[in-house]
């Protein structure tokens, strides 16, 4: 009797348990399914507009800005990333204004069109922060950039180092002493940019060289414009330099793409050792090029800090109605002497 009762009880319990477990499994399964679609919601929406969202430099700045924004429950988009077509900064500005975002971070230039767009956005109540490239005449609330003067001075010191090395070699070889010629320093500048930063860099470079006791006969700075208006023209422009009779001794690049193109051109034209490249930005390929001795030195910019400043400026504006006009991100020079540390650090970061 008891055995039967127990068996019956167990069976009924088992049956009900199966039913309940089945229902629960299904329920949790479905809930799990829906939960995957659930996401955080943010209060504010900023966009970052750059000339090329794929560039390492911009990605890195964006990452810094994204982390900073997330802390304030704000989402920041690298505008144009999700679109099929490639849009210019100006077009993206228009999209951003039409989309009524809460803040725009734009890699600006001094063109009138950009000024107008920034002003239009300001009129619409959208604060604009210029990043890296400024538009001084516009109603942008803040500029986040690198200290161009400092960069120029760093370049100047590096150029002087190169000059000193050359002097030493020349002293060793008296033959050469007689044929001493001045060092050709070429600065690659973008054609489109009425960018004050570039000018500041060049003047700081000159200033440093003269301060460092380099005689005018020892160097000759020339500015070579690089056409960056069209999609692939940068690379062509840089190669053109190497096709000339006179190849410069030092090439100073003022952005990441120029650096990479110059470096590749030096390799392709077999001019490693003859041409010293002073690069810009510390992307992996550039740092490894320094390690190999192809690039003489490069400027490392604290991109995360840059992104942070952008977000800080926008949220300050939203909170207090005003913010600092200028933010300057830290720069570090990387050359043969400290490249190993950088490589190590990158490895750790990875």
């Amino acid at each position: 009797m008891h055995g039967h009762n127990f068996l019956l009880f167990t069976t009924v319990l088992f049956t009900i348990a199966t039913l309940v477990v089945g229902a629960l499994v299904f329920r949790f399964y479905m809930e799990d399914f829906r939960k995957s679609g659930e996401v955080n919601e943010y209060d504010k929406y900023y966009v970052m507009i750059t000339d090329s969202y794929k560039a390492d430099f911009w990605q890195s700045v964006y990452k810094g800005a994204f982390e900073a924004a997330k802390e304030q429950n704000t989402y920041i988009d690298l505008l144009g990333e999700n679109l099929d077509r490639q849009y210019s900064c100006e077009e993206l500005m228009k999209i951003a204004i039409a989309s009524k975002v809460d803040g725009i971070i734009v890699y600006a230039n001094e063109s009138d069109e950009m000024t107008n767009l920034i002003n239009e956005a300001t009129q619409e109540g959208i604060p604009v922060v210029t990043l890296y490239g400024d538009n001084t005449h516009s109603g942008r609330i803040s500029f986040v950039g690198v200290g161009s003067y400092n960069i120029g001075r760093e370049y100047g010191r590096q150029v002087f180092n190169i000059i000193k090395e050359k002097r030493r070699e020349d002293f060793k070889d008296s033959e050469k002493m007689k044929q001493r010629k001045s060092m050709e320093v070429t600065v690659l500048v973008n054609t489109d940019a009425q960018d004050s930063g570039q000018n500041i860099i060049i003047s700081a470079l000159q200033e440093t060289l003269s301060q460092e006791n380099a005689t005018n006969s020892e160097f000759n700075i020339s500015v070579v414009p690089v056409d960056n208006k069209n999609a692939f023209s940068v690379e062509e422009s840089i190669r053109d330099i190497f096709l000339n009779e006179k190849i410069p001794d030092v090439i100073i690049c003022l952005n990441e793409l120029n650096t990479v193109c110059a470096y590749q051109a030096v390799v392709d034209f077999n001019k490693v050792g003859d041409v010293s490249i002073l690069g810009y930005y510390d992307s992996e390929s550039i740092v490894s090029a320094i390690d190999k001795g192809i690039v003489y030195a490069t400027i490392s910019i604290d991109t995360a800090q840059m992104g942070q400043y952008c977000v800080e400026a926008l949220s300050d504006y939203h909170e207090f109605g005003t913010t600092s006009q200028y933010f300057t991100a830290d720069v570090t020079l990387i050359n043969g002497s400290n490249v190993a540390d950088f490589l190590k650090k990158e490895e750790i970061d990875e």
Partner: protein
Amino acid sequence: MNRFFNLPLQKKIVGIYMGANILIFIVNIFLIFGINIMAQEMEMVYHDNRQLNALSEAIADVQDSMTVYLSSKTTDSLENYYNSAQKFQNLSEAIGVQVTDESFSRMRRNIKYMSENYLSEVSLTIEAKRGRNVEKYRNHYEKSTELYDYINAYISSLNIEQFVSNSEHYTELASAFRTFELVSVAVLTLVMIGNIISIIIIVGMLIRPLKDLADSADEVATGNFDTDLPEPLYHDEIGIVIGAFNKMVVSIKEYIVRLRESMEKERDLQEKELMMETHLKDAQLKYLQAQINPHFLFNTLNAGAQLAMMEGADKTYEYVQTVADFFRYNVKNQETEVTIKEEVTLVDNYIQILNVRFSGDIKYEKQVDKRLLKTAMPSMTLQPIVENAVNHGIREMGDKGVIKLKVYREDSNVCISIGDNGKGISQEDIDKILGGSFAHKEEQYEHNGIGMDNVISRLRLFSERPDVVDIKSEGPGKGCEVIIRLPLPADE
């Protein structure tokens, strides 16, 4: 549980059936519910894409109607514009503006705001066209066209991205559906198995008492009333039948016992009566045989006694008188029960006669408690025992033979002891006499016809105790004693 089992059989069976069905029904409801949810999810998979396509169509309508209006300014196109603009506005208003981690949500948000801007641009364009402000409407047209392009670019990008993600979602859903199918089949199967097992057990529990009852009924049918009766477990119809069956078996058993007892009693009674009658008849028959002469003899003796008196022979008279009394007792005593006194008197007479005959050879000693003399006892018992003692004990001893008669009380018994100092009797013979298997010598002379076995049987019947007569002998030559123990009457 027990309450369920105590329900009537019909309700129980219906209950089991309904329980099983309800369980399966519940499982099915779950299944349908699950399938419904799944189907809803599936339906919603490409919902976003459809929404975007509708949006895209609507904005194209707006753009087209505006262009047509700008180029031809027809009323139709204006109407078309208003309709399509309204439709587009409704669609764009439905879009959410949340900013989340999902790129879709942000793109949708941008599309919504751009659409608002676009609509206001378009309405400005139309207004300017109506006001024939060529410069202005061209400007607005360009702006709105630009926005139109951006929105389209956004929509198509979003559409493609969402299609990819939705397709993934669809694949997940499809696999989820398959999992669900499997789980459902497993659950359904398990529930079915559980159901079947439960039904088998419950039905088994219901039927088992009936089986037990059938087994017991079989046993009882073969006549074994002492079989184990099944316990009525539940108060259903089966329980009632089992209870009734049990009661029936018990009462049949009781009835049989009672019947047997009463029959036995009756038989005992009849047997006793018959035996008493038989023995008395036997004794009477013997007496009658013996009385044929005594009657005549008694009369003759009376005449002799009177003659002796007339002649003055006193002793002869006394003797003849005693003989006459002795025989008179025999003749008159037709009753089975007499008092001890009457019996003792008969023994006195008998001894007196013998002493005349054998010239005072026998010594007769008598110790009688006179209070006990009124006690009843069967007639014709003491004289045959004394006769026995004389004949078999002291006959050959001449004048040394002694007969002792004692009537005394021992505990709650009235004892009558007849002893002699004759040749005794062996234990073997005592056992034979008490067992009733002693060989009679009927033709012995001077025997009054009543044997020891008859006396013992009658005494046993009278007192209803088997040890009423005891014979003691201390061996050959040491005499013999017969003790009769009668129960003391209740009033004494």
